[in-house]
């Protein structure tokens, strides 16, 4: 089972083009909040939260995907394609969206100019979990030579449902209201799911394949955090960034 997972992970990494700006890397966070937009958005500080998301016990099996109607997608997976709902590797959990929920100045926080991307490749979304600042644009591209539709089903924001019948098509969309999370789905391929975390500020990140995440650009202080996973639920935590500019935190999920 574990081997299948690693193979899946590898395939995903390749499918994401080596994880460039996506694939479970921290999205809005990193060493500084939204590094690409630093010129316009000054961080509050220079401290960094370093975190890890653990998973204890045997992870639940992910559902198989019947891709027989899309041979070009099915061919990208060795053996049976599965829906990467719970991605655990070495006891570490990926695709957990972590954001600061307390301890920050009220804002407002301007939206960065950089546009995160969701790619539809191999009939899956890459990344599956992505964060944006409210008002920051998101790009959704189709790398598959077949029909996808992108349907966002938010409650606080306006939804949309547009088709991309060709590879290379791109849709830019801006969610204006904070909403964690906005589900994104494809009606043609019912298994395709992505989640967009729309946050009022840039202090968030998504756990990578090794379960780690970093949220940078914060001054010393104590912060409340919330971790979100699509099937395992939410957890809350607290972290203190000391005078040395470093704070660490761990979240632990498990099958119990």
């Amino acid at each position: 089972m574990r081997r299948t997972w690693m193979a899946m992970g590898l395939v995903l990494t390749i499918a994401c083009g080596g994880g460039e700006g996506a694939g479970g890397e921290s999205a809005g966070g990193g060493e500084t909040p939204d590094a690409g937009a630093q010129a316009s958005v000054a961080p509050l500080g220079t401290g960094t939260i370093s975190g890890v998301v653990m998973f204890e016990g045997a992870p639940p099996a992910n559902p198989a995907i019947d891709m027989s109607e899309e041979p070009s997608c099915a061919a990208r997976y060795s053996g049976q394609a599965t829906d990467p709902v719970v991605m655990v590797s070495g006891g570490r959990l990926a695709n957990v969206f972590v954001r600061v929920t307390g301890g920050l100045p009220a804002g407002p926080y301007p939206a960065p100019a950089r546009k995160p991307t969701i790619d539809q490749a191999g009939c899956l979304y890459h990344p599956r979990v992505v964060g944006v600042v409210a008002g920051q644009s998101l790009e959704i591209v189709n790398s598959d030579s077949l029909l996808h539709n992108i349907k966002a089903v938010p409650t606080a924001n306006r939804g949309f449902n547009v088709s991309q019948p060709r590879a290379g098509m791109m849709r830019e969309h801006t969610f204006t209201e904070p909403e964690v999370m906005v589900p994104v789905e494809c009606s043609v391929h019912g298994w395709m799911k992505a989640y967009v975390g729309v946050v009022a500020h840039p202090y968030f990140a998504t756990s990578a394949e090794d379960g780690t995440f970093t949220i940078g650009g914060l001054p010393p202080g104590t912060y409340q955090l919330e971790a979100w996973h699509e099937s395992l639920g939410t957890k809350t935590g607290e972290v203190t960034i000391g005078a040395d500019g470093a704070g660490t935190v761990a979240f632990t999920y498990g099958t119990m």
Partner: protein
Amino acid sequence: MSEAAGRRAGGPTGRRGSAAQRSRVMTLVGALIIVTAGPPARRPVEAQEPPGKVIYDRWCAGCHGEDGAGRGEAAAFMLPPPRDFTRGAYQIRTTASGELPTDADIRRVVDEGMPGTAMPGWRARLSEQERADVVAYIKSFSRFFGGAAPEPLSLGRAPGASAEGIEEGARVYRELECFKCHGNAGRGDGPSAPTLTDDWDHPIRAANLAEGWTFNGGGEVEQIYTRLRTGLDGTPMPSFSDAVEGGVITEEQLWRVAQYVRSLSPNRPPVREVIRAVRVEGTLPSGPADSAWGAIEPAFIPLVGQIVIKPRWFAPRVDGLWVRAAHDGTSLALLVSWSDPSSSPDSAWQEWLDRMAVAMTDVDGSVPTTQGPDRLHVQFPLRREEGMERPYFLGGDTRRPTYQWQWTSAPETVAEGRATGLGAFTPAAAGVTHTAGFADGQWRVQFTRALVPADTTAAPAFPVGEAIPIAFLAADGSNGEDAARAAVSAWYAIYLDVPTPAGVYAIPVVAALLTAGLGGLAIARAQRRTTRT
């Protein structure tokens, strides 16, 4: 309002009258059952209440709920369910995907209703002002309204229709992969169709493009094109505006798709009170694929959910049957065809059935989660009745039994016999034979039987030149339909043509000769008179 609009909710009335009248009655009954399912009592109007609230609470809240969230008392009986107004997501718009509808968009649905759903049109019941007030009130349920007025898309005009244009539309339909949901022949049977859900996780059907009169936003080319450009928000149907604006296809090509989709349906369903069995010389059609059927005009028999006997069924899959008939003086052949996206049981549709079971289970107990077969019952009165008496439309009763052909898809067979009610059936062979075929989301079943059966106590004869009562039941096993959960028709009639006597052809010739002769005589006389004077 479309004749099919009330099919989900209407109950067969069995009343006499024209087919159109009957259909309208069924629609009205359906609408009233729903509308009156629990209207809140009239309350004194408070001064601050918006005028639309009074109208809404009285006429709309029974389905849409007093809070506008689509959870009124009658909502449990409906699929698709009533609109939840709180999200401000509307299917039928002239604006881009994700945009709010214009007031005129909402007003159109209030006026016309939503064909193919339980939503009736209100133009005849509510005044102009009342409908305007209710639109304003509906908007107040969602916090998204209140900003700038939404802008309708500029849609241009349809290119001239032509056979080549429709062919081009069919090509683009395949290229855009519309068939993924709507199927190769447009009957809503594409590979993704069993997986579709709306924004509230209810199972939702891919539109059957061969029944344009059931399209929620109307079946005309301009209306279809508008849906292609705007999408139907809240449903899986996306907008194709990006494909046009991004140059993937031209605006004209998308118009061609709309024209192609329009070409898949007749203008209106040919609902007939009487199905005519054409007298053919030579042999009867040999099976459902026989091209001879192409020359015979079909009658459309609308079906509605069986809501008399429990468990009642408010979400029937089959909304109508196409019936053709022929006889050769010795035997009757009946071809019944209908849209059904699956030949049940079909593992691809298990996911659909599981969702149906969740969506409809509150009505009359659990919906089966194991797929049964597809079914078609054709029934006739077992005995000829005096006057207009007919057996009870749901299979008859012990006093007036029916004679039925009960066809199932699995095993693929037909049972013939006597029924004294829904589910009360005793087989008795009287020589009916059948051939069935399934392709592209359509069943075609041909029944053939001698006009005079060997044993006339087990089965009625089919006399020529008489209106013989006939009624139908159809069920989709992948849609949770079993036993009483089915779609049914009221009584219709089948009339076997009387062979035309040769004398009929001679009469016009004789008449013409006689007229010419008398005319000639008159002229000759007149001329003689003129010559004399």
